[in-house]
């Protein structure tokens, strides 16, 4: 049955192609012919164009009909999206209204106050500093953690020592479960000016100890590297799964042609998992203004606010002081930026790598 349907599709598309050729031909004629013929030619052109539109409509219907089971599969998830994602989004308008409660004002009953909350955020004394810090951390983490987790996945895949591979694979994802409270304790013990290991080494070489966690120069590195420390094993899991799907015969062919291990990684392994890397990258770009609230809230202090304060920590301090509507305004600001960047990078990715989200 499906084979037959496929055949019909073939026929339809062949006919549509023929129609479009005829239209092109008529267009040419229209340019070349004299005034007298013009009317009849353009009428014919109109008729053909109409035919094509109809045919295309039929083709679309046939295409939809052919995929009806796909739509069936999509039905429940799409309903889910409507209920659990779009209703909250609709409810989000309370950020622009004088909302009190469901009974007192309802979602739409409060007076529209518009963009006042946005203004508070955008006109903040620290606005640009917040944007700069947020982008610094999210791009920094992307640049450090993503390549490292890919390298880790490839190393686990290629490692010939079975025991070593097993141990690393099992241990590498564990730090993901250590909360930032715990990680902070570990970092403090490494970096503390009075008893940290790093300062012990500095003292050994006659230097003066430094409080790295309160040093504006060292702080960004600590944030980015400690994030990599905690998360690369976890992020690598997805790439390991991708590596498992590579067709072994590709490697056989490469070996026959005399490719060494480096070349195999370069020409087979990496290209094979490239689509997954691109998708992970695109998804991270969509939420680029989430720079890791839990980590920074734990690690920063007033001494390093100038390099440590990100949008989310700033908003959180505001909410503690009772400015609740700021959170939604900042969330929507982050969404607009994320959406814009997502469209741009999706377009670029479709153009240059042939994989894209939509």
């Amino acid at each position: 049955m499906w084979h037959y349907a496929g055949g019909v599709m073939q026929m339809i598309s062949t006919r549509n192609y023929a129609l479009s050729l005829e239209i092109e031909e008529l267009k040419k004629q229209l340019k070349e012919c004299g005034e007298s013929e013009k009317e009849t030619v353009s009428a014919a052109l109109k008729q053909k164009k109409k035919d094509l539109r109809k045919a295309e409509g039929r083709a679309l219907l046939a295409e939809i009909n052919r995929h009806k089971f796909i739509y069936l599969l999509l039905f429940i998830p799409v309903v889910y999206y409507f209920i659990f994602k779009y209703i909250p989004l609709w409810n989000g308008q309370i950020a622009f209204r004088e909302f009190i409660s469901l009974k007192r004002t309802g979602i739409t009953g409060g007076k529209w106050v518009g963009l006042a909350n946005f203004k508070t955020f955008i006109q903040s004394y620290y606005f640009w500093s917040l944007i700069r810090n947020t982008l610094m951390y999210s791009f920094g983490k992307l640049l450090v953690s993503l390549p490292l987790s890919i390298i880790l996945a490839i190393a686990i895949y290629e490692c010939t020592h079975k025991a070593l591979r097993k141990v690393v694979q099992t241990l590498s994802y564990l730090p993901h479960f250590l909360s930032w409270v715990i990680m902070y304790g570990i970092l403090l013990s490494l970096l503390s000016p009075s008893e940290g290991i790093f300062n012990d080494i500095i003292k050994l070489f006659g230097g003066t100890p430094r409080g790295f966690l309160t040093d504006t120069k060292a702080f960004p590195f600590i944030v980015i590297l400690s994030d990599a420390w905690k998360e690369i094993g976890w992020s690598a899991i997805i790439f390991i799964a991708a590596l498992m799907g590579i067709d072994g015969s590709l490697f056989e062919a490469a070996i026959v042609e005399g490719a060494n291990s480096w070349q195999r990684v370069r020409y087979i392994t990496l290209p094979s998992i490239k689509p997954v890397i691109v998708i992970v990258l695109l998804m991270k770009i969509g939420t680029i203004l989430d720079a890791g609230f839990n980590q920074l809230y734990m690690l920063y202090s007033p001494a390093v606010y100038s390099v440590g304060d990100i949008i989310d920590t700033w908003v959180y301090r505001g909410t503690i002081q009772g400015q609740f509507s700021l959170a939604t305004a900042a969330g929507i600001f982050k969404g607009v930026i994320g959406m814009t960047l997502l469209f741009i990078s999706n377009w670029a990715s479709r153009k240059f790598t042939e994989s894209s989200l939509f």
Partner: protein
Amino acid sequence: MAKKNTYNSVAVKATAADRVFNICVTIFMILLLIVLIVPIWSTIALSFRPPAYIGSYLEGMFLAPWKWSAGAYKSLLGNQGFLNSFWNSIKIMVMGVVTALFLTIPMAYALSVKGVPGKKWITIFIMIPYVFNVGVVPTYLLISKLGLTNHLPSVFMPVALSTYNMIIMRQFFEGIPNDLRESAFIDGCNDIQIMFKIILPLSKAIIMTIGLYYAVAFWNDYMRSLLYLQKSSLKPLPLLLRDILIGTSMNDNLEANAFGTAPIEAIKAASVFISAIPMIIAYPFIQKYFTKGTLAGSVKG
């Protein structure tokens, strides 16, 4: 992984470059091992730290195990609510993962099929809520209207279909050769049958991975349980652990506290391990499905 030999069987002798490659990989792995051991081991040592301990973290790492104290584990596991909370968390996780996969797999498969009219718009439709995060209250209002508050599903339902996980899964499905799908059509299968008979058996690794991602997210969830589960009997483990941590560090005004046997740092560290137990147990099983060339074999067969 025995399958590696399938292509090594045709291998010519390893060249110098191959040997350098292997050495580099091994060195990288060993370095990584050292770097990863530090936080894990220090947390283990910390969780067994005895009360009245003097010395730095580093010295604590090398504290002899016979000086260790299990006080932190005792006070956590001995909490009256522990078993109940553990059981609540298990229920949330199992129900959540089943629901999540039930929603995620069909959508990921449907969006991986090429040439479906409207696919692009559906993808944009799902990306909008992924990018826009409207905060706590709007979702709370929905859950409240649905009457889900004080029911365990309220914890996982708002995130039962994670756009990120679904898109990643779709990417893996897209990697399955189209010939397989086409030949199934010829055999008279429809898309739903294809999903079950062809796609799923070839995608165990990614389904396990995404299942793990969901499981961890549901298991560790804190904020939603806090808001939606007000009944104490429904309290899941992360909430209880947090109560214990905060309670222990806020005991200033209390004449006694139930957790006097262990320092707060030890309780923090021990709670990390207790809450990671199911994941530590589950991961090796999941690794079993991470075998090379699963796809290639089926294409040939």
